[in-house]
């Protein structure tokens, strides 16, 4: 019977091509609007490291001045001071830990054909690689001894290795940044991060880091961070005074492998701050935070309000499209009262009539879904054109394709249910009279 009903449905849809097109386009547009916005929102906020996002915690300490909080709502600063970062690194109370900051340095290629260029990288510690797990193509990260020894080593991103060495295994060779030579210990494979979640202080969709160098080495070279720097009182004159100041400019992450370790670390931090209070620092009440990756992403509004509003509107639009389709299907099915009456009089059960019309709405749903999927693709291209920085999140993945199709069919069947139910309540007798 299914094939026959399908045939009937298709024939009936062909009879009113304009009405059919209207319904399909309506569903498709609703689906496209809601799925485009949902995809962007979903990918923006999606967990970047699901297997350990609850173990990685972002350290926040409230070292701000007594007179005014760092933010109006009382959240602690989003970065830490050099003093506190080094104290926490030396204490090494977490399972793994790394402080880091963004640097921009001139690169002087050995190859004279390649002109010197500015490249953005990251000063960090050996644990970075074990904590955030970037994939290596050649070699490996540096080790803790090299951190302690302020070694001149570097890990290149795949793009920079491509630019400088044509993608070959460059480990053991050296690269010159701002007049100093660094030995390459590792080269990353393509590290596809949707959001650069390990540093949200300069935007979640910023360009990826092109290289990684030891934090300790950068401090030796008096390398200033290229990210944000905030001070609640003037740092004084000179590099040493700056390192000793209450200016925050460093991001600090710890890996804590169990809830018990998290509680221990929290206690350790509170204890640390209380000790610092005795030295006259940390004038504000205790306000330490250890948010995990996902909490930190919510806190930093990785999914912007605009995107949330757009998604809400996308779904409201889908509701309007569905209401529209219900109305049109109702109109269409009620014109068929005569046909239904005839089928019922000839012995078809309500169930059969229900099936027949549900298949017809299902056809509209699937067509709308397929067209909607195509339009979603177009929508995502438009999002990319409008928001240059969203190129990593405006893409369709398999889950979203499946969700789109399911949403389309469910929407169309929901929209078709009431008209279909009405259609099979037709009394054969009233329809057969002339």
């Amino acid at each position, binding site marked *: 019977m299914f094939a026959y009903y399908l045939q009937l449905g298709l024939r009936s849809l062909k009879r009113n091509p304009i009405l059919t097109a209207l319904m399909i386009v309506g569903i498709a*547009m609703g689906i496209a609007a809601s799925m485009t916005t949902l995809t962007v929102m979903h990918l923006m906020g999606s967990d970047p490291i699901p297997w350990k996002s609850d173990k990685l915690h972002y350290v926040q300490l409230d070292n701000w001045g007594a007179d005014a909080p760092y933010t109006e709502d009382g959240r602690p600063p989003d970065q830490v001071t050099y003093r506190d970062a080094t104290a926490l690194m030396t204490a090494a109370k977490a399972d793994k830990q790394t402080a880091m900051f963004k640097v921009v340095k001139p690169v002087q290629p050995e190859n004279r054909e390649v002109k010197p260029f*500015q490249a953005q990288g990251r000063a960090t510690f050996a644990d970075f690689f074990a904590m955030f797990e970037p994939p290596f193509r050649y070699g490996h990260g540096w080790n803790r001894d090299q951190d302690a020894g302020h070694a001149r080593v570097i890990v290149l991103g795949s793009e920079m290795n491509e630019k400088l060495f044509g993608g070959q295994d460059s480990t053991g060779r050296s690269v010159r940044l701002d007049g100093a030579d660094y030995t390459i210990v590792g080269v990353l494979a393509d590290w596809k991060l949707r959001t650069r979640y390990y540093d949200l202080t300069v935007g979640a969709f910023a360009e990826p880091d092109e290289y990684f160098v030891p934090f300790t080495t950068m401090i030796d070279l008096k390398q200033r961070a290229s990210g944000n720097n905030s001070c609640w009182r003037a740092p004084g*004159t000179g*590099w040493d*005074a700056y390192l000793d100041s209450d200016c925050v400019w460093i991001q600090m992450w710890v890996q804590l492998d169990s809830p018990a370790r998290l509680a221990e670390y929290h206690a350790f931090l509170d204890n640390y701050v209380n000790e610092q209070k005795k030295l006259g620092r940390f004038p504000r009440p205790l306000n330490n935070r250890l948010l995990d990756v996902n909490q930190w992403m919510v806190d930093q509004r990785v999914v912007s309000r605009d995107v949330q509003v757009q998604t809400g509107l996308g779904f409201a639009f889908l509701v309007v499209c569905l209401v529209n389709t219900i109305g049109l299907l*109702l*109109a269409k099915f009620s014109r068929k009262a005569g046909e239904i009456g005839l089928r019922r009089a000839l012995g078809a059960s309500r169930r059969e009539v229900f099936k027949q019309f549900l298949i017809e709405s299902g056809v509209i749903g699937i067509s709308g879904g397929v067209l909607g999927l195509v339009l979603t693709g177009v929508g995502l291209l438009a999002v990319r054109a409008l928001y240059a920085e969203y190129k990593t999140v405006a893409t369709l993945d398999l889950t979203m394709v499946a969700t789109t199709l399911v949403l389309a069919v469910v929407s169309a069947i929901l929209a078709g249910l009431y008209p279909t139910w009405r259609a099979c309540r037709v009394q054969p007798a009233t329809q057969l009279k002339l």
Partner: protein
Amino acid sequence: MEIRPILSALMRSKVSMILIGLQVALTLAIVCNALFIIHERLQRMDRPSGMNEADTFIISSTGFGQGFDVKSSQQADLALLRSLPGVADATSAITVPMSQSGWSTGVSLKPNQTTDTASTALYLVDAHGLSAYGVQLVEGRDFKPEEVQFKTFNERVVPTSVIVTRALAQRLFPDGDALGKQVYYDNEGPASTIIGIVERLQTPWLDSDFIDNSTLAPVLFPYGNATRYVVRAEPGRRDEVIKVVEQKLQEANPSRILSKVRTLEQVRAEGYANDRAMAIILGAVIFALLAITALGIVGMASFWVAQRTRQIGTRRALGATRFDILRYFQLENFIITSIGLVVGGVLAYALSLWLMSAFQAPRLPWHYVPVGFLCLWTLGQLAVLGPALRASRVPPAVATRSV
């Protein structure tokens, strides 16, 4: 009038009526709020930066290696830039409005004040700063070359003389006598004297709550070995000047790295890219919603006309004119739309309240809803016109035919 027969006819197809009404209601609620958001964004994008945006561009130069002296290189570059034909003026600067990155600090009226009197952006420029930015001095005087200090990282920057925007002057000295007054950019002093006031210069941050509070200070402040230059070309010569500047700077020191030139127009476009995108997306949603709703009304009305062909024929046979039939369908649509609009008006305010609480959005101004009423009434009347005209052409003879 025919309202009673229309109402009793509508009561017989309640569901269809409710569906159209609901669609109109949702459309009104969404369109009003979306239009308001668009209006807000356009207003935001329309704010002047205070700079000459049409003729100005920025370029950064980074030197490296031993033997690079940023101070002399900066002086040589500035002299070179100012000598080029077509360049009106140039300065070194850390930032420009709308670029979203820069320096901010607090300003106090007294030393060691616990809370700052105002927040301000800090523009560090040389004596050509005002001219290169193209900002307008309204009171006092410009910087003199001998006032310009040279500072590097890790040195305290405490300018002795500053030029502030009118908004900041007003905030610090509401009586309007800011010129010549002393203020504190560093709690421990020394004081800075306000020597001039400019009409307007936005801070670099488009979202800041002190966007009109800026301070210009005469300080050359390279960022490590990097310096940014702001160059203003003579009117209409920007693009030719850019080419010359890129070439001459590279020739002057072949081993440095020059950033890509960004015109202030590009800086503005990038700064407001998200607002522009939001406005375009919401515009597209509004267009699609109105189209879907209009097509829905056309579809439903066509169906009603077809369903009532015989009744129309009967009415015509009993003496109703074509105009009566037309008016019947127009009036019917007007009634349904009006019911939907009343519900939609409530929904629009409810949606606005929700946006206010969830996203700290401002309240929807009341006049959006009545304007939305007018638009949707018009849309409904136009949408139903086609089917209604078709109905009015049904010949009376139809009444006599069976099926």
